[in-house]
Every structure is written in C-alpha cells, then in structure tokens.
C-alpha cells in the first residue's frame, strides 16, 4: 500500500530545531558540511559530532528515526569503506601473525584503516545532518526557505517566483497523485493485472495500464488547476505580493553563532593539532 509511505521525512513534534527559520537551517547545514570537510583530524570531527549531537537532542526526534536514514545508503557506505581499506596507498602494511595483508594491488595498511574510519565518520555526519534538516522541516517550509535564499537570483532575471510556485504545486499534488496511483493499481489488479509474477518483460507491460491513466489524470488535473488559477486572477506577472514572510528570531541568531563558532573551532583544531591527510 502506498498509504504506508509517509510523504517526506518530516517528524511532527515541536522543538527548538523545528521552530528555527528554514533558511537558517539550510545555511547551517551548508556551514556544517563545510566544517566537516575542513576538518583534517579527528579532533575537528569530534567537534562537529558534538554540535550534531546537540542538534539531535534539541530536535526531540528519536535517534532511531535519524539512524533510519543511514539504511538507504548502507551499501554505498560499505562500498566506500572496502575500497579505501583495500586500496589506500599507505606505507605500513598490517601484519596478522606472520602474514602481511597484501595481495597484489590489495594492500591493507594502518593508514588505510585510519583513513577509512575518518571517511566513514565524515560521511556518517553528512547524512545525519541532512536528514536532521528534512526531519525537522516540512517540505513546504523547505521550499519557502529555498525560494527565499534564491531571491538574489532575481537580479539575474531568474524567475524565482515561478520556480517557487512550481515547487509548491508539485508538493501539493504529490499526495493526490499517490492516492490516484493507489486507486488505479487496485482497479487494474481487480481486472487481473499481475504485478508480482512473470518475467521483467511481463512486469513492465503490466505497468502500462497504470501509467496511461495516471498520465491522463495528471494532465486533466493540470488543466483544471490552470483554470482555477486563472479564475483566481493569476497572471504570472512580477507584481504579485507575498503573504508568507520568514522572519529571523533569537533562535536563528543562536544557530548562526553556533555555526560560526564551529567553523572557527575546526580551523583552530586543524592549525594546532595537526592533520592526518
């Protein structure tokens, strides 16, 4: 059932992080990613991790929900790990008993292990921090934030408000289209379509009776929505006003300062505590 899929990742509770301005959250995420990449030793990364843990604690999102986001890219993580473990050009080969772990191009070194751990740690934090953003920000707020951050592009004649409207309508329509997919799938299943058995060719063929009605339905929706928008005086001109306004609060100032402090801290770690890269 498609109904079992909750749209987006948003975890609906109230918290400090939830209440932050989406723009500052996006900017903070960018700042955090910069910090993670700047960090060239474990001290810097530990500092980042500390900030992330504070963020998670302040968000009141259960840790399991955040860790769940790792699941999707577990394979990627494992792949990168193995690649680094085996092929990192280190100097000190690991020796277990009398046997050095080196076969042809495969060479497991201490540096390799060290670097692999560092890389895993880094990736881990990138993923956790971005899923913290999507868990604490509704898709609507996220689009509003992106729109607002893109506003300067207006000066380059980039149609920011059109893009924003397109994103907003897409978000609005996704649940409707999922419902419709569900309905059409059931209807065709009731007429004997089999999605579960048969070879790939057969299964692809079984999708046609779903795709076509869905496509036609989407076009019908688009047409009707277009009429409704026209009837509500939409002209696409630049003279629209905007009701929703994002405002910065004291929370956002705190987050901003935290971000600045983090980057500064990481740089200091790099300078005074050496680099492993």
């Amino acid at each position: 059932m498609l109904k079992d899929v909750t749209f987006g990742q948003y975890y609906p509770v109230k918290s400090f992080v939830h209440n932050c301005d989406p723009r500052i959250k996006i900017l903070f995420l960018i700042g955090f990613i910069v910090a993670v990449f700047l960090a060239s030793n474990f001290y810097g990364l530990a500092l980042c991790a500390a900030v992330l843990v504070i963020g998670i604690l302040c968000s009141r999102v259960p840790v399991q929900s955040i860790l769940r986001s790792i699941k999707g890219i577990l394979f990627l993580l494992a792949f990168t790990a193995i690649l680094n473990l085996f092929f990192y050009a280190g100097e000190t080969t690991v020796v277990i008993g009398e046997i050095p772990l080196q076969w042809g191009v495969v060479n497991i070194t201490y540096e390799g292990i060290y670097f692999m751990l560092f890389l895993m740690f880094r990736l881990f934090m990138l993923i956790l921090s971005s899923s913290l953003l999507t868990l604490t920000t509704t898709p609507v707020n996220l689009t509003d934030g992106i729109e607002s951050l893109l506003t300067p592009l207006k000066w380059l004649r980039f149609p920011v408000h059109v893009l924003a409207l397109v994103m907003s309508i897409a978000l609005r329509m996704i649940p409707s289209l999922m419902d419709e997919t569900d309905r059409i799938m059931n209807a065709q299943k009731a007429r004997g379509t089999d999605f579960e058995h048969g070879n790939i060719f057969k299964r692809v063929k079984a999708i046609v009776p779903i795709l076509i009605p869905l496509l036609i339905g989407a076009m019908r929706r688009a047409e009707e929505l277009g009429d409704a928008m026209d009837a509500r005086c939409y002209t696409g001109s630049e003279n629209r006003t905007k009701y929703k306004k994002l405002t910065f609060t004291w929370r956002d100032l705190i987050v901003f300062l935290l971000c600045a402090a983090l980057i500064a801290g990481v740089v200091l770690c790099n300078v005074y505590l050496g680099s492993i890269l």
Partner: protein
Amino acid sequence: MRITAEHLNYTYNQASEFAVHALRDVNLTVEEGEFFGIIGHTGSGKSTFIQHLNGLILLPSAQKKYKPKKLKKGEIAPPKTVLQVGEYDLTDKKTDFRKLRSKVGMVFQYPEYQLFAETVFEDVAFGLKNFSEQPLSPERIQTAVRQALETVGLNYAEVWDKSPFDLSGGQKRRVAIAGVIVTRPEVLVLDEPAAGLDPLGKQELMALLHEIHRSWCKTVIFVSHDMDEVAENCTKVAVFSEGAVQFVLPPKELFQKQAELLSLGLDLPVTAKLVALLKQKGIDIDCDFTKKDFIQKVQKYLQGGNGVC
C-alpha cells in the same frame, strides 16, 4: 457465493505512530442473491471493507511473509478472523486470489479514470484476457466484449473501435463497468457507482445494475451516500461507522431506527422523513420506504377514512 466476515480488523500504517484503525471487529454476512447496500460516512471503513472482498487488501495471515504469532503465557488468543467468499478462504495465503478476483468484480469510484487502452474493445477485453488460463479465441473474446457492451447499454458497432477518451463522461463510465462485468463475476461490488452522474444517468445506472442482478450476477454489493437510492433499491443494508458495522437490516427495518441513524450523522430517505413527520401528526404510515409503497400506503390510509379524498 455467500460472503462471511467475522472479527475482521484492519489497520493502515500498522506499527507507526500514524496508525489508523480502519476496521474494528467487523461481522457481516451477505447471502447469495442479495442486492446489498453499504452506507456510512467517508472514512467509516466501507471502502476498506469492500477491498477485502477480492483480496486487494490482504489480511496479515494471507500475506506471503506471514508467520503466526506465538502467544505469551497467560495471553488469551484473539478471536479468529474469518473471511470467506464462496469457497475461497481469504485468511489463507494458499488461496488463488487471481481466480477469486475473476469471480468478484470490483468497480471503483469514478471508474472512467482507469481506462487506458487505444480502443473501447481493447479496454473491455483487458480483464478477460488477464484472467483466462490459456489464450482465448478471437471469436470468444468478441462475443464476450459485445455482450458486456450491450449489457451496459452501448451500441457495440458504434463504439468498439473508438478511443475510450473520445466518449462522453456517462459513456466512459459504462465502458469501465463493461470492462469489469466482461468476465461475468458472481459477485459485483461497486463503490458509489452513480457519483457525479446527473439524475437521469443515475436512474439508468441503477436500472442497469438491477438488470445484471436479475439476469446473471447473483450478488450485487454497492456503496452509496444517497439514502433515497438505498431505500429504493436494496434488499439489505449495512451501516458502517468508525470502522465497525452498526446495523445490518433490510431498509424497511433500518429506516425505522431514525434516532440511531441521525446520531451517526447519517441522513434519511425522503420517505422516512415524511413518515416521521406524519407520525407526529398522528398519521401512521407503515411502508417499506420505497416511494411507490409510500404513495400506495398513504392512498390506502386516506381511503380507509371515507373513500376518495
């Protein structure tokens, strides 16, 4: 085919914080030969229930990966769920659900939105081809499609090679229904089949369902919001509310329970409203709540006094 449901429960999004209990301990029997109505608010569980009837929603015990839960010590086993449609046991994963679906036809709300093929013929034949074990001869397919289209009141010669998308709204719905009845199901389930049609279209559709019911489809089950339609057409009605079945009664008895229906937020057929008002005025009309019977009974009542009024 007799349909029996006992202790039927269903929860959407089980094991998440957004769980919705769509069905709670539903007990319901639909005898063969019934023209069965299901009423209830949006979200009362009607749609979830009917999707169980042909295995579009599978009970946990009918799912492939199902493993029976072991009871803890001292725990009492929940009452056994029964869901039986004719000879098909829907709680069993070994049941051939595709075969079941060919016996239980399902017409969804606004069925015209599921049309997809290039021609009316292809669309109607779709289910027929899907369900048959071995390829059917073109003649057999043609006969079945022709019969289905004629049953829904369309002229085969006129529409068979047209694109279904070029037809009018009412015609599209008929084609969609033809695409379901083409396999001659023994049970036909319809979710608000008359929604969005104009008054005449509604009348024609109900007449069509009665015709199918009379000639070959033994059991018809339909969901409706229109109490007049239910009072006029059904032999028996089930009332759903908040996932549970409140009543299963013939209309004649059901619409006497006016206070109960109103407290469930349901409307009454016009005839029932009239009977209630007349009762307040001291006039007792005992009718089965069809318009025809109401008119007759009122006439009889008045004539019982002193002849023609």
